[in-house]
């Protein structure tokens, strides 16, 4: 789950991490007493808003409203801006960096701190980065923070604030089931205060059941992806034209790869997972058809999946939607023979293996 900046700030405040004062607006008139001077920022879940013109500066209420007028409704990435956030302009003396992520190889949370912030962290030289792996079972101990303060080579008072923010950010990371907490820049102000200049927060989708308050948050999904998500279907839109339905994430990715090797391009993929429930298969087809693929490639390798009921679901979907979209189907599983008959009767192209299926799908797409 991703968070709009203003929402991430709300959560940061809850954990006592200092953030700038800000006011949210869905229409220009919502700015009655914005902090001035301020930066009016588009609230989007994708990067690149600055370049797209989604951040403007204002010194008066009228300017803030003008900025809101210009930004609201703007398209950034494939998303329309619905909210803007007016944030007090900070008098920044120095920009630092702080983040918490998960180090997969070490199987531990990783605290990254640098006295060089405000730029992409990948461009910071390794010797200017403090990498602290936190043993998850014992957490972030005070001695680690003391060492951090010493190594930062910042004025004592500033280092103490950074260390306090690190401790609170780790509490947030654990408490909110986060995959990423990133503050860039972590701003040292001219008056000596240290404030989170930006706030990035990503929370583990699998922990949603522990945080029901996040269930209603906007996510960066297309409308069709949103519909699929609500139905509990893994569906992702890509920029090609061939629709793929497969079972299992690895096989789905492999199917897209083979299509590309054969000269095609996946336009959307849908992972059926372990289901062979014809109703679920029908639902899956329905969503995929809405994405208007040039051809559909159904690739199922089931150990215990019933091939015939998958075929029935596919057949019913095609009938119900009266579609002319050609379907190439490769189904391995229980009752495979029966499945092939159903597919053939319904006018689908039944193939034996992945490569042949991909080749045929690319050919049929060319024929249209």
């Amino acid at each position: 789950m991703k968070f709009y900046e203003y929402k991430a700030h709300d959560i940061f405040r809850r954990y006592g991490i200092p953030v700038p004062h800000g006011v949210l607006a869905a229409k220009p008139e919502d700015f009655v007493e914005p902090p001035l001077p301020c930066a009016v920022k588009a609230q989007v879940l994708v990067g690149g808003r600055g370049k797209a013109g989604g951040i403007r500066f204002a010194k008066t209420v009228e300017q803030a409203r003008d900025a809101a007028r210009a930004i609201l409704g703007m398209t950034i990435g494939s998303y329309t801006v619905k909210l803007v956030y007016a944030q007090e302009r900070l008098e920044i003396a120095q920009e630092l960096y702080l983040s918490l992520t998960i180090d997969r190889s070490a199987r531990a949370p990783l605290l990254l701190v640098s006295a060089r912030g405000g730029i992409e962290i990948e461009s910071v030289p390794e010797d200017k980065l403090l990498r602290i792996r936190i043993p998850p079972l014992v957490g972030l101990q005070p001695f680690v923070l003391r060492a951090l303060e010493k190594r930062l080579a910042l004025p004592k008072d500033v280092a103490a604030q950074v260390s306090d923010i690190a401790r609170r950010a780790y509490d947030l990371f654990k408490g909110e089931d986060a995959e990423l907490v990133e503050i860039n820049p972590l701003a040292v102000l001219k008056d000596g205060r240290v404030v989170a200049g930006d706030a990035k927060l990503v929370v583990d989708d699998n922990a949603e059941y522990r945080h029901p308050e996040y269930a209603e948050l906007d996510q960066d999904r297309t409308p069709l992806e949103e519909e699929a998500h609500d139905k509990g279907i893994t569906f992702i839109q890509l920029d090609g034209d061939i629709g793929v339905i497969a079972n299992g994430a690895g096989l789905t990715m492999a199917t897209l790869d083979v299509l590309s090797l054969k000269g095609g391009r996946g336009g959307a993929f849908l992972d059926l997972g372990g289901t062979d429930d014809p109703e679920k298969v029908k639902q899956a087809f329905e969503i995929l058809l809405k994405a208007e693929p040039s051809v559909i490639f159904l690739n199922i390798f089931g150990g215990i999946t019933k091939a015939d009921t998958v075929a029935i679901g596919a057949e019913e979907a095609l009938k119900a939607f009266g579609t002319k979209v050609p379907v190439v189907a490769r189904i391995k599983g229980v009752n495979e023979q029966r499945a092939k008959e159903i597919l053939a009767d319904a006018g689908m192209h039944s193939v034996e293996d992945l490569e042949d299926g991909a080749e045929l799908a690319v050919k049929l797409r060319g024929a249209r």
Partner: protein
Amino acid sequence: MSVLLDASTRLMVQGITGHQGQFHTRAMLDFGTKVVAGVTPGKGGTDVHAVPVFDSCEEAVSATGANASVVFVPAPYAKDAAIEAVESGVKLLAIITERIPVHDCLDLMPYARARGVTVIGPNCPGIATAGVAKAGILPNHIFAPGPWGVISRSGTLTYEIVDAMTRAGLGQTTCVGIGGDPINGTNMVEALSLFERDPETKGVVLVGEIGGTSEEEAARFARTMSKPVFAYVAGRTAPPGKRMGHAGAIIQRGMGTAESKVKAFADAGVPVARYPREIPDLIRDSQ
């Protein structure tokens, strides 16, 4: 012989009375596995396919001498179930459950390790030693005993590749499904080192995918191995920033791309298949 699972494995099934637990207990028994106990709190005293069910892991282990466990417990309860199994004294744990919160795995994995327990998964199809025993959901009929080890982050894609190997007469020692989550109990390098030490395994097939750096680490380790490694990497066409079905399958900040993994394997002299079914050809070409 094999790795992790062998004829001495006495398996316990956690969540045995659920739909998945019952179904796969039958399949594991059919595979030849010694399934000695099941655990479902509140269902102690009943049985599933003649396997006795206990209320707790402790009771199951003390009554049956179970030394391994397979976990089918739903995600919100999986951490508790896994820790209960570790406490009961089993030495091997295969967690099939998907969608376990990553912070639960961050707690669980170092804990299990400190107690000397090997964890496979989560979000994985489990482990199968061909002709001997299975802890998980891999389909029985695709396996044939032979000298090749298999390590995979995927489920169905693994079945596809193992099936192709078996059809080509390339049987397996053990197939280890390490799972598709960012934090797993056994990573690729650890699984490779098990196969390197196994006298019966002649070489290893690695099925990787985008996300993380485990393939790059495995490629580095493969240089030090005496046995050949063959690889497939899924997700060459996956766009950055999209989570491709597995929690761990995501290209983030330029990290975890298929190109980087394929290059790491190529640099280490590990042949990489372009198609899943090319794996048997690569193995035969190397012979």
